[in-house]
């Protein structure tokens, strides 16, 4: 990896509080590349929040070095460093005596932007985070928790910082809103390409959001630092395995797209086929049903027993409950296999043209791989 690709580099960073024997974070080294979304995850006391807060020096490290885009973070005044780093915390911390517009415009105003430019930027951002412009004149106490955190994200993005630090940002909202916020933030991040460091205690959130996950143990010990799929397939040790919890295979399937598995043509025949041809296809695939194609569309499926004395064209096919596109996850495919009568997942392209099928075997190969 070329040196210039590292956006944040922690070098032997240690935080030792006076009067405690063990450091909160001891000798932690970590490289985060430009544009990466790194989730820091671990049990309470693992120093994940301390680590995050040392990056913008809300907590000053006891020793070690932190480089941001090659520049020593300790070499400049803390407030100047922080103006170039977006910061979102769980408690949100909007300024209650300031309007939403003033909250969002905090950093631009510190940087001395002109009022018209700040207004333009706040207008733009409030829409980016999915809120109405009317909200700008309101006060934080007039907004719901989910709306407030959207404002929190907008405030952090205001001066377009290259780095975003997020400390359990979606931890205080209810699970449904959290799901929405996670999804929206992922989409936003894909557009903006920020380097994100994201602390969470929720391994599922870490898996869902991170391009890489750093799993920390008590005292800031880095147990594993890798992509979600790699960590799920090859946990480095017992600690990581325990922390990942049950359903590791399912979690991994949730990350893999259908396109990563072998899509086969499956037991299908054109609706003009004779009963004999259809039976031959079923025999070949050792199944008692057959998919009915009309050109490049899959109409549905027909049971073997329905073909007694009738050609395919004479039987009304039963539609498949679900058709998935290739970018859907294998977990969705598995769901479709176990809930559908035909024990298969139908894959179509964006226009709805038939692409093939996945059966249980093809999916489980991906789990055990």
């Amino acid at each position, binding site marked *: 990896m070329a040196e210039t690709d590292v956006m944040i580099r922690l070098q032997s960073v240690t935080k030792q509080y006076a009067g405690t024997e063990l450091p909160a974070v001891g000798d932690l080294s970590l490289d985060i590349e430009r544009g990466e979304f790194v989730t820091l995850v671990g049990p309470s006391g693992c120093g994940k929040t301390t680590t995050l807060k040392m990056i913008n020096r809300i907590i000053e490290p006891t020793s070690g070095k932190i480089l941001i885009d090659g520049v020593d973070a300790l070499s400049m005044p803390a407030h100047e460093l922080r103006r170039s780093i977006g910061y979102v915390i769980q408690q949100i911390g909007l300024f209650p*005596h300031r309007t939403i517009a003033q909250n969002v415009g905090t950093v631009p105003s510190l940087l001395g932007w002109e009022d018209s430019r700040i207004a333009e930027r706040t207008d733009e951002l409030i829409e980016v985070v999915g809120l109405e412009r009317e909200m700008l004149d309101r006060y934080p106490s007039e907004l719901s928790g989910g709306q407030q955190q959207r404002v929190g994200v907008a405030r952090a993005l205001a001066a377009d910082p290259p780095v975003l630090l997020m400390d359990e940002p979606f931890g205080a909202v209810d699970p449904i809103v959290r799901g929405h916020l996670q999804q929206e933030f992922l989409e936003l991040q894909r557009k903006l390409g920020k380097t994100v460091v994201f602390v969470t205690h929720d391994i599922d959130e870490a898996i869902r959001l991170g391009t890489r996950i750093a799993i920390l143990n008590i005292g800031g010990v880095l147990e594993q630092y890798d992509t979600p799929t790699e960590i799920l397939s090859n946990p480095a040790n017992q600690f990581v395995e325990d922390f990942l919890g049950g359903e590791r295979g399912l979690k991994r399937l949730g990350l893999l797209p259908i396109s990563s598995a072998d899509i086969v043509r499956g037991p299908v025949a054109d609706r003009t086929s004779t009963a004999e041809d259809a039976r031959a296809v079923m025999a070949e695939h050792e199944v008692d049903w057959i998919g009915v194609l009309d050109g490049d569309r899959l109409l549905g499926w027909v049971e073997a027993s329905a073909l007694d004395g009738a050609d395919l064209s004479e039987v009304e096919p039963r539609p498949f409950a679900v058709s998935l596109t290739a970018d859907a996850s294998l977990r969705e495919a598995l769901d479709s296999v176990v809930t559908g009568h035909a024990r298969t997942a139908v894959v179509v392209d964006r226009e709805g043209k038939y692409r093939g099928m996945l059966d249980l075997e093809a999916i489980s190969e991906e789990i055990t791989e």
Partner: protein
Amino acid sequence: MNVLEQLIDFIMDPSTWTGPASFWTRLFEHLWVSVAATLIGIVLVFPLALYLGHTKRGSQAATAVVNVGRAVPSFGILAVAFLILVEFGAGVGTPWAVLVALIALAAPPVFTNTIAGIQSVDPATVEAARGMGLTGSQVLARIELPMAMPLVMEGIRIAFVQVIATATLGALVAWGGLGRYIIDGFAVRDNGQILFGALAVGLLAIAAEVGFSLIQRAVTPRGLRVAR
């Protein structure tokens, strides 16, 4: 003649309202010494209270000290200040001893309320502000102080109302103020005059109380007034 008739007599007496010792003179004396004592009290303790509240350092110890000071009666401070000032030839008939006693009375509520106001700001709000890149003094001036304003004004209100009620002590050292009606009334056994003085001080204190609650509302940032 009962006390009400005596009061009415005193009010109807033209000399109550005119001349060098009129009600207006006494009112003015009373007000200026009260306002001055409160302002000086604020100036003396406000910066330290801001600093201690902002840094969260030593504020408990400081508050304890100030509260001990609170336990010393104004009357006692007045007496000591008077005796010292007499040595410098500035005791009898001057406002200085009473001013000292009133400053000591005004300072503690301003001090403790300012610290409490700043410390009542949600730590998450302060952390977010720091995280955005506000300097320490910007956090204090733009975040902590505006949000502490209602409590700060509350402290100033308590101080001012107490000072107004206590400024009557000025008459004890042969100075003016509305307390003169009470002291002089006792001296000449004029109950109407005593009652007049008591009512005047009481009404003034109430007026101060009401006036300040209006100011308090005005300085409460809008975002903090919005119903949750």
